[in-house]
């Protein structure tokens, strides 16, 4: 059987299609499944190797981003989720998916205690921010292999990562900070807007679970899979033309999805 990804949809999740296309480009097939079909057991989580919680605006961010969708999962498919997490499977949450994962307590989940200990609070600016950012891997794992940088948009109203000082120390010691916001020259953002677009603690853009099988990420690499989608794509295209070259169609951001797919090889 071919390893497949299950991508959740429903209730205002909205990035399921671009997530499926990104995985497809990286070489993995996926099914987009409405969460209610998993709840009704029409689709089984365990038929898949990877679970993707894509970006979106589930329940309109009402009562806090990701909160209502997280409770829908906890109230109805919690046991299936735990069983899936016990297997040799991966979970990727992007933006709203990351918000859902922290609300479920699946990130960072120290000692497999699945309680809410981290949060993605409202942006410091108080306003939704859609703008390009640059990320740098903050630790080594199969997720970040071969990645020097990620250049992609953020698009969220609540991406301000927060946890206790003790948990931050633990995240750093255990190398669970996956990505940090940096300036385009890869120097630290130091919480300076707009490089850090939301005020996130320690410039954290994404974290891993203790067993590294769950990655949550605020920015959207799946929305910048082609070189011309990068913020300086057309400048680079023109420079390449003058150097007698052509830009590669695919952007360097695809490596993140390739890494996930390679985990199963």
């Amino acid at each position, binding site marked *: 059987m071919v390893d497949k990804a299950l991508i959740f949809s*429903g209730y*205002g999740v909205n990035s399921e299609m*671009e997530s499926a296309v*990104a995985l497809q480009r990286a070489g993995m097939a996926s099914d987009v499944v*409405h969460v209610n079909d998993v709840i009704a057991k029409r689709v089984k989580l365990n038929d898949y190797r990877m679970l993707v919680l894509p970006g979106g*605006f589930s329940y309109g961010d009402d009562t806090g981003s990701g909160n209502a969708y997280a409770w829908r999962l906890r109230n109805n498919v919690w046991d299936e989720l735990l069983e899936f997490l016990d297997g040799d499977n991966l979970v990727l949450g992007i933006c709203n998916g990351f918000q859902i994962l922290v609300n479920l307590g699946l990130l960072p989940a120290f000692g497999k205690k699945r309680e809410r200990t981290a949060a993605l609070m409202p942006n410091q600016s*108080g306003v939704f*921010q859609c703008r390009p950012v640059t990320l740098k891997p903050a630790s080594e794992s199969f997720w970040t292999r071969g990645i020097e940088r990620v250049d992609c948009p953020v698009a969220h109203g609540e991406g301000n990562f927060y946890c206790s000082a003790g948990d931050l120390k633990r995240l750093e010691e255990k190398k669970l900070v996956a990505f940090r916001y940096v300036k385009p020259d890869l120097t630290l953002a130091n919480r300076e807007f707009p490089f850090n677009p939301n005020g996130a603690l320690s410039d954290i853009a994404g974290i891993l679970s203790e067993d590294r099988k769950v990655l949550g990420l605020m920015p959207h690499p799946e929305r910048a899979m082609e070189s011309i989608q990068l913020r300086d794509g057309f*400048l680079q295209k*023109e420079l390449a033309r003058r150097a007698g070259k052509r830009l590669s169609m695919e952007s360097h951001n695809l490596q993140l999805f390739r890494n996930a797919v390679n985990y199963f090889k």
Partner: protein
Amino acid sequence: MVAHRIEVAYRLDSRIAQRTAGLKALGFKVENVRLVDVYTLSRDFSRKQLGKIGSILANPVFQDFTVDKATQTDFDFAVEVGFLPGVTDNVGTTAQEMIEDALKAKFKPGEAVHSSQLFLFDGDSKQAKAIGLELANPLIQRIHAKTRQGYGQAGMDVVVPKVKLDELLKAERVDLELDDEALAELGKKGILDPKTGVRRGPLALDLPYLHAIRDYFLKQGRKPTDVELESLAQTWSEHCKHTIFAAAMDDDVPEGLYKTYIQGATRAVRKKKGKNDFCVSVFSDNSGAIVFDEEFLVTHKVETHNSPSALDPFGGAITGIVGVNRDTIGFGLGAKPAINVYGFCFGNPQSKPQLYRGKNKADPAIAPRRVMEGVVRGVNAGGNQSGIPTPQGFCYFDDRYAGKPLVFVGTVGVMPCKINGRKLYVKKAEPGDVIVMVGGRVGKDGIHGATFSSEAMDFGSPATSVQIGDPITQKKLSDALVKEARDLGLYHSITDNGAGGLSCSVAEMAKECNGCFVELDKVPLKYPGMAPWEIWISESQERMTVAVPQEKLEAFMDLMQRRGVEATAIGSFTNSGRCVVAYHGETVMDVGLGFLHDGLPKKHLHSTFKPLKHPEPKPSAKKDFGKTLLSMLSRKNIASTEFVSTQYDHAVQGGLVVGPLQGKGRVQGQASLTKVVLGSKKAVALSQATYPRYSDIDAYHMACAGIDSAIRNLVALGADPEKIALLDNFCWCSSNEPTRLGQLKRAVKACYDAATAFEAPFISGKDSMFNDFLGFDGKNNPVKISIPPTLLVSSMAVVDDAEKAVTLDSKVDGDTVYVVGPTKNETGGSEYFAWLGYLGNRVPEVDFAANKKRYERFHQAVQKGLVASAYPLGLGGLGVALAKTAIAGKLGLDLDVQTGLKPDEWLFSESQGRLLVTLDPKNVEAFEKIMGSDAVKIGKVGGTRLRVNDWLDVGVDALESAYKQVFSHGG
């Protein structure tokens, strides 16, 4: 009544500084403005259950909750803002759904969760009332304030906004055997409610219409019911039937402006294009559609939501954007909303005009600053939550929009042409199909919305026309329909419920099979007590009407149920030739479809036109125009409104190629490029253009400039000028006055001339004809403010290879700079003259043939990869174009210009048809060979300054700060 109150307070709130600064900027002396989220539950629960509810509503990482106990902390005064009864409360709805799922306990009718926001302030409590009015809109929200002492231990009051209705629950007969004066009053103010003695709100039916209705029912041998009269008023409204565009005008346009000039232009263009015609569906459906590739088509539609946005800017705008999304979902068998666009015309946000709808300062108009803030936020909420990217839009400012803003909202959709051999762009309800209403429930929202926008806004404008969209309910419905039910072939036809609600959607679909039968008592309501006429015409949002064949009904209902989408069978389509409506077994409407749709008498309108002379400014004696250019860049119509672009998600759905901000210097472009089919090389280019001030000189040239610009903007981005489709949105004023109709006639004629000359077909359009504010100033003097006649031209083209697109930022030091197209002394109506305080007379005129040829040649140059950057000249002319090209590229420009014009004429004339281009010096020869003498070399890219002759020499950083400082703190 039992009610519980749960308060969720923030232990940590990163927005306090921003929130406090916002109020301080408005002059309030407050500190440390905190927020508490409040949920009021009008249902009983046990203590344990309430504890559980609190724990799911609050995030323990940074919030605390209390149950039936006031949040206790230090503050000086508190202001709570909640919704008035019946106003859409999305947060409350979500909380209710969460509680039902967590406790597996349903709320009964009449029980609900109501959200409110409690703000706690440090500062003088005397400011409470004014702050409340800043935080809330009294039309839809309640404001309660308490001092710390009054708040005490008990805190704020528990308030349940329950709807209490006292309507007549049956249809009433209405007597039309009245004299003309009484009849006119009925048309203007509405049916007299027999129970309350109050008129129900405007029917907006004038005398000839009422006579036609009276004659019809005389022949039927009975009096009409209120349901029938309200229904006819909706169907015959200006909003639905476009009576002004349909009317005969003067002696030379007997078929009316729309048929003659708009439809006529498209017919002529399609004929001329022959096998290159790319139109799939024009004017007949909810959106217009063109070919994308062999597999897909793309749709486009632009709407306005002006009157509702004047009353409640946030609600009006969110309802507008979510509403136009339904014109996509309702196209053919349902296209997927793929791109949103916006265009806002506001009064000066720094002005504080004293405008009241009533005498003695009653019913004040909302200040332009708050209109802008609310409208911007409304489209943010609607578009972002719906998961539709918004890469394209503009803000335009003129004091004459202070009484009535214009809120343009549009949506592009994408759809496969065929699935399983079935053409998805064709729909037809069949007799026997079940009428299913899908989506939200029906309340009093928006009643008289359609007829209301046909009347100028004055005192007595009905408050119930205010509604707030619920994007998530619509997102669920949209996904269930266009991503699932459509491709399973579960329905025959679909249309959206917009203006006029069911009365318009069902009657419209009934044309496809020639009849319908509706049982109004089956329609699910938000609250009991609505009269049948209200259910029939209510404009409650997020609803589609679907024709489901009997044999598919079970599968359709099952799918909707599994997707959490409410769907209800409310009747069936027939072939009786009549629209029949029943309520609890009694027929309350029975009107022939022919009369309903075509019974309205045609109007014959008369127009006049007389050109006016305006004073001209004295020639400028200035030598240095550097400061002038900086002032021009800070004009609101030219300055960056990046704060809007960045709060609208323009990257969702993964297709963003050229977004709203281009180059290192992040300059707002005039056009955008988005992939709507991921993996395809093709992309959709979109643009918009409008020149309202040109109407003050001549609306003919206003329209020509709009069309030429909307085309040029796409050509600059790399679109093929032969593949451009157009949309028209006319927003006019006082359309009962011959002079305004004269301007209209000239503008529409221009549309025909330009569209046929450029061979660009109109595929969709809309009009809004009475954008006037009628009221009083603070001293009871009558005030009328009419918007400048505004035509928004939207353009769309499919770009075959997105990689060949061109952005506006200069790219490389040493590149050659060209102006393509002649600059004439055409400063009339320009931003420059507006800055000088003049209108002038020499409005730009469009040379169709020359511009068309230029655009075609330029496109060849782009296809050959010769062009590094291109900026389509518009407001502010060359001066502004040079500055924006330099700012975007973060590179200077060094230019030596030879011209017979005076410096300010050359710099700021808005002559149409021009492009500012930079390119690799190696491409100079090839470029000049294609463009001919049309392209004039003026200098080089490089350095850090913009220099033009000895006219100006300014640092790029100074240009950038002038361009960005105006809205650097948002609106």
